[in-house]
């Protein structure tokens, strides 16, 4: 009998969520057959079997999140137990593997549930009627320490007291039914799991940690539209994929980041790390899921090269085939919000990057050019910045430089190759 452990799906990944089991007890599988789909905050991946054998028991339910190294299922194998129980999916050459996680992982899982309670904490809690779930632990892995309990005994359960006082005051004003009247009737409940949960966590982290500031600039994209339209049909015919407006914007951003490297940086607590590579993250939606794959070294690529990558990544995204490899290493995000008709938006930065640029819809509008009213193709570029790293001035200069680049595209001078 062998245990299959939750594999480590990337360097900083510590836990994963079983999205879907692809096998059931009694199934016979061969080594490398997919056992289940796992979602981490970075990637969705299939966990391959590391043994030939029969599935005996699934230890983790779909939707549950467990730490890397936690046993997820039991398998009956024929051969000896000489096969390693842990197999890394992303690292074909396993780094020197410490045996520790294997035995420690289940303990850690228990710690989350609060079962590691020391004798003194148990005694003080029961003597004083303290609910340990209400005590914030400051010890190792959030363990409730003796000092934590003593603090609660000294200060009293402050959180509990508040609702008690509210209760006393409510009967005086109004009886209970009022809030019920205001509640909408409950409809379908959608469990938050997998990618949705990962997106939610990432967004909360970003909006809580990063003080966002926003800028928007109007750009005249008339020249760009002309350039693109002049190549559109022949490009499609020759290359087999679309020459999108978005590729031009990514190109302009990559070039401008070279000029303003501070936008291509990351807040790291006590320092700002300026990234050498310009790796542009782009948002790709697939059904109800959102992926953010990366165009590496976008500054090295031609517009055609970018268009090709955008096309390939979008296709992989739609088919849910993007892996961690596709998603890691991004240094700046360009988001094609215009694709669904938006003309203005305030993006949440892709943590830990310094900024995100939203490219809105290109729309024809009357504008004043040389004191005359003209009909031009206009686009709004909306930039969200990490105000710890960037101030309005540099962000404005950056955006202006992007604007200038886009406005200076021309059929004569711009090559897509």
């Amino acid at each position, binding site marked *: 009998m062998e245990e299959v452990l939750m594999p480590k799906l990337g360097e900083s990944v510590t836990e994963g969520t079983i999205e879907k089991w692809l096998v059931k007890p009694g199934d016979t599988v061969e080594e490398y057959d997919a056992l289940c789909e796992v979602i981490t905050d970075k990637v969705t991946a299939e966990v391959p079997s590391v043994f030939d054998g029969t599935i005996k028991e699934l230890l983790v339910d779909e939707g549950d999140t467990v730490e890397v190294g936690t046993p997820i299922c039991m398998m009956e194998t024929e051969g000896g137990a000489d096969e390693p129980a842990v197999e890394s999916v992303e690292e074909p050459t396993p780094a020197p593997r410490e045996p520790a996680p294997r035995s420690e992982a289940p303990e850690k899982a228990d710690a989350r549930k609060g079962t590691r309670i*020391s*004798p*003194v*904490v*148990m*005694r003080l809690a029961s003597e004083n009627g303290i609910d340990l779930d209400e005590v914030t632990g400051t*010890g*190792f892995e959030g*363990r409730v*320490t*003796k*000092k934590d309990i003593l603090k609660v005994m000294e200060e009293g359960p402050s959180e509990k007291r508040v609702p008690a006082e509210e209760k006393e005051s409510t009967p005086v004003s109004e009886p209970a039914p009022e809030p019920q009247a205001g509640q909408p009737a409950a409809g379908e409940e959608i469990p938050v799991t997998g990618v949705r949960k990962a997106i939610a966590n990432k967004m909360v982290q970003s909006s809580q940690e990063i003080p966002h500031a926003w800028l928007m600039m109007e750009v005249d994209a008339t020249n760009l539209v002309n350039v693109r339209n002049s190549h559109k049909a022949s490009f499609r015919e020759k290359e087999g994929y679309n020459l999108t407006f978005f590729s031009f914007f990514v190109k302009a951003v990559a070039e401008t980041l070279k000029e303003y490297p501070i936008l291509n940086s990351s807040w790291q607590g006590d320092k700002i790390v300026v990234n050498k590579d310009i790796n542009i993250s782009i948002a790709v939606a697939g059904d109800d899921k959102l992926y953010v794959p990366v165009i590496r070294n976008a500054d090295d690529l031609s517009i055609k090269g970018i268009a090709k990558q955008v096309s390939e990544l979008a296709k992989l995204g739609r088919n849910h085939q993007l892996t961690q490899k596709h998603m890691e290493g991004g240094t700046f995000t360009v988001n094609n919000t215009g694709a669904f008709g938006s003309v203005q938006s305030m993006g949440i930065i892709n943590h830990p990057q310094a900024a995100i640029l939203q490219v809105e819809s290109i729309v024809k509008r009357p504008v004043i050019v040389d004191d005359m009213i003209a009909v031009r193709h206009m686009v709004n570029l909306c930039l969200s910045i990490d105000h710890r790293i960037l101030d309005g001035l540099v962000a404005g200069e950056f955006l202006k430089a992007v604007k200038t680049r886009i406005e200076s595209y021309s059929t004569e001078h711009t090559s897509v190759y």
Partner: protein
Amino acid sequence: MAKISYLQAIREALDYEMGQDENVFVLGEDVGKKGGVFKVTEGLQEKYGELRCLDTPLAESNIVGTSIGAAMMGKRPVAEIQFAEYILPATNQILNEAAKIRYRSNGDWNCPMVIRSPFGGGIHGALYHSQSIETVFTSTPGLKVVIPSTPADAKGLLISAIRDNDPVLFFEHKKAYRLLKEEVPEGDYTVPIGKADVKRQGDDITVITYGLCVNYALQAAERLSKDGYEAEVLDLRTVYPLDKESIIEAASKTGKVLLVTEDNLEGSVMSEVSAIIAENCLYDLDAPVMRLAGPDVPSMPYSPPMEDFFMVNPEKIEAKMKELAEH
């Protein structure tokens, strides 16, 4: 009060007791004319004569046997064993005779003897000059084993040991001899045998130790204080019999206990301290009891890096303290 070293404090205790009680005499290898290999007994032979500061042959069993006989006849001998590991030829005399005379004679006879001996490592002494051998004696009722950690305690405990009516083994850390200096009360000054001492107050963790490690633990505690953790440091002072009451009190105070000894880990004094805590303090414990000790290898090595690996030091203690504080 004068600031004197650990070594001077011991000499002062000997001198004071020899001066006020003519039954007190010193014997051992090279203690007379040479004044001892570490010069602890320097000047005593000149002051009190050859009959009260005796140079003996290289025969530890003989030194202790002579002392036992003299003690039974009413003298108060203070025997010196040149290095603690040389005491082994005398263990039969100590364990079978000295420790049991009062019991065997139903209280008719007793043995008011002190055996002093330098122990401990960190001085590049290698295997014959670095060992901790206290555990040879810490399971024999009838004996008392005292290990002072400061000059004042060394003086006070040695005077108490000489005045004690039963055999006392008095181990002096040889690295502490000239390293530790402090103000020591002059004249008649005693420290009770069997009483541990809180050397530092703290409410985050408790460190229990003895010997030179007390000084190391205090250094570590000061560093740890910068991280916001306050360590209580309990100095056992007497490692046999143990001051259970103080151990229980100190362990219960914080619920997080680190036990430190430079002796080999298994079967050390700290194994017994740990058992006392386990038996008495379970419902006051906030973390598993931790021990920091020398590795279970035969002896202190001579090579400096290997000696460093073996020896407990403030850095090692601090690291363990922090681990415990953060538990």
